């Protein structure tokens, strides 16, 4: 069974201002199947539709047309969310709570029985290296610590699918290495991982397959065999497939 299926899923953003409506295509008819246990990377420039695809999957956005199916259920479906872990591109956590309180909250929201929550939170904080800061408020956490706390909330309920939106953006090299190890560990546990990134070198190291998005369209899907042992194969494929759609020109060097 596929863990995730996008079936002609599209999203058009409509904005009205002073009677004038403008439309922006966020995602255009995405067809994609991700089987269980696969690590799939979504590659693309800014505004290519990576985050839109993830938000449709998480039920944070509603598709304009088409549908997204997760574990056999058409999204948005509340009960399926208990089987997905999601870490957005930045740690959007409540800063007035401590690390432990945050994890206890997400454990409760993920339907973990009350008797298990404290122990789960404790072990998850230890797992992401935040045991020493468990009782500090998140307002006192550094950026790296917040990112770890965000990963912890995504994993506390031991989800079958882990969705990571640009998990290495803004991290230092050591933290990037740890995130990479985490993704491979999740794969070894049989989890399905979907993550988005700009970073080609990261994607090629951990993914079984990748999809390249450009202007809201899926322009290429590649499997590991197509880039493994072929230096620059993925980078060249990426450069050939994408074009800027954000209206930004190239930097002039003369």
């Amino acid at each position: 069974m596929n863990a995730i299926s996008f079936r002609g899923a599209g999203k058009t953003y409509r904005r009205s201002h002073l009677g004038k409506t403008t439309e922006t295509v966020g995602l255009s008819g995405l067809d994609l199947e991700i089987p269980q246990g696969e690590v799939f990377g979504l590659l693309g420039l800014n505004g290519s539709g990576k985050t839109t695809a993830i938000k449709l999957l998480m039920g944070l956005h509603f598709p304009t047309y088409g549908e997204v199916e997760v574990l056999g259920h058409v999204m948005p479906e509340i009960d399926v969310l208990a089987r997905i872990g999601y870490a957005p591109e930045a740690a959007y956590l409540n800063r007035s709570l401590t690390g432990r309180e945050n994890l206890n909250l997400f454990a409760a929201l993920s339907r973990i029985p009350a008797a298990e929550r404290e122990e789960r939170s404790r072990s998850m904080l230890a797992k992401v290296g935040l045991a020493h800061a468990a009782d500090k408020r998140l307002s006192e956490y550094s950026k790296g610590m917040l990112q770890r706390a965000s990963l912890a909330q995504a994993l506390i309920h031991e989800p079958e699918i882990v969705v990571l939106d640009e998990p290495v953006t803004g991290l230092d090299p050591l933290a990037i290495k740890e995130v990479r190890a985490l993704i491979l560990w999740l794969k070894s546990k049989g989890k399905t991982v979907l993550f988005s990134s700009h970073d080609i070198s990261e994607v090629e190291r951990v993914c079984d397959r990748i999809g390249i998005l450009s202007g809201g369209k899926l322009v290429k899907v590649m499997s590991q065999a197509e880039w493994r042992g072929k230096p620059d194969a993925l980078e060249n494929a990426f450069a050939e497939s994408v074009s800027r759609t954000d209206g930004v020109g190239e930097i002039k060097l003369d």
Partner: protein
Amino acid sequence: MRTIQAVFAYTVKEHLRHKAWLSAALFGFVLLAGGLVVSAIAQDERARFMLDLGLSANEIIALVSMIFLTVHLILQEVESRAVYLILSHPVRRSDYLLGRFLGTLLSVGGAMALMGLAHWLVLQLFGGVPLGKYLTAWACSFGKTAVMGALSLLLSLALTSEAAAMAFAVFFWILGHFSAEMRFLAERSGNAAIKTAITAFSHAAPDFAHFNFRDHWHGTQPGEAWILWAGVYVVGYCAACLALSVQVFEQKEF
């Protein structure tokens, strides 16, 4: 129910740690203490002056806190994107709204109870007041606060601007004290359209005549039916506002 409980608990924690809210409560105590000094001027009516001043101060501070907190309650979580993580867990949007509202209501109610206790103790210095009567007056203020909280929450979601929601909430609060006058105006109006509009408006705006227990303090006491009806009105009005808030919130994308 477990989800509502979890959202409720973190909302209460968040408010308890919110310095602006604590300073509002402190301001209440300062006002009550100030009343003690000022009441010395009203030689013959000191007890009455202290009673009215204390109840009014408690109600005004609670209303201001409630409007401020509920207007920011969801919009701030949307702005900080903390709502992404909450709603990417198996949380019904209605449960989230209800938990946030009830948590805020309890927080403000707790502050009101503290201010009420302090006020009641001060009143003992002036010969005291019957506890039952005092509790009824306090409950009426609390009912008014709950109604304004539910209305402010709805306005914040419908208008998506904190400033506009706050301005409209204050407008409805003022209007709520003139429901009888609005209905009188509607009756006197010769134009059927204006009559319908004013009547509809007078029913949509909260009717604070149901909570004017203080008007009866020194005269004939209203019966149990009056108090019961005030309770029914609070529950009904809050339920209607929350149901509409859920409708608006269900359509939102983050």
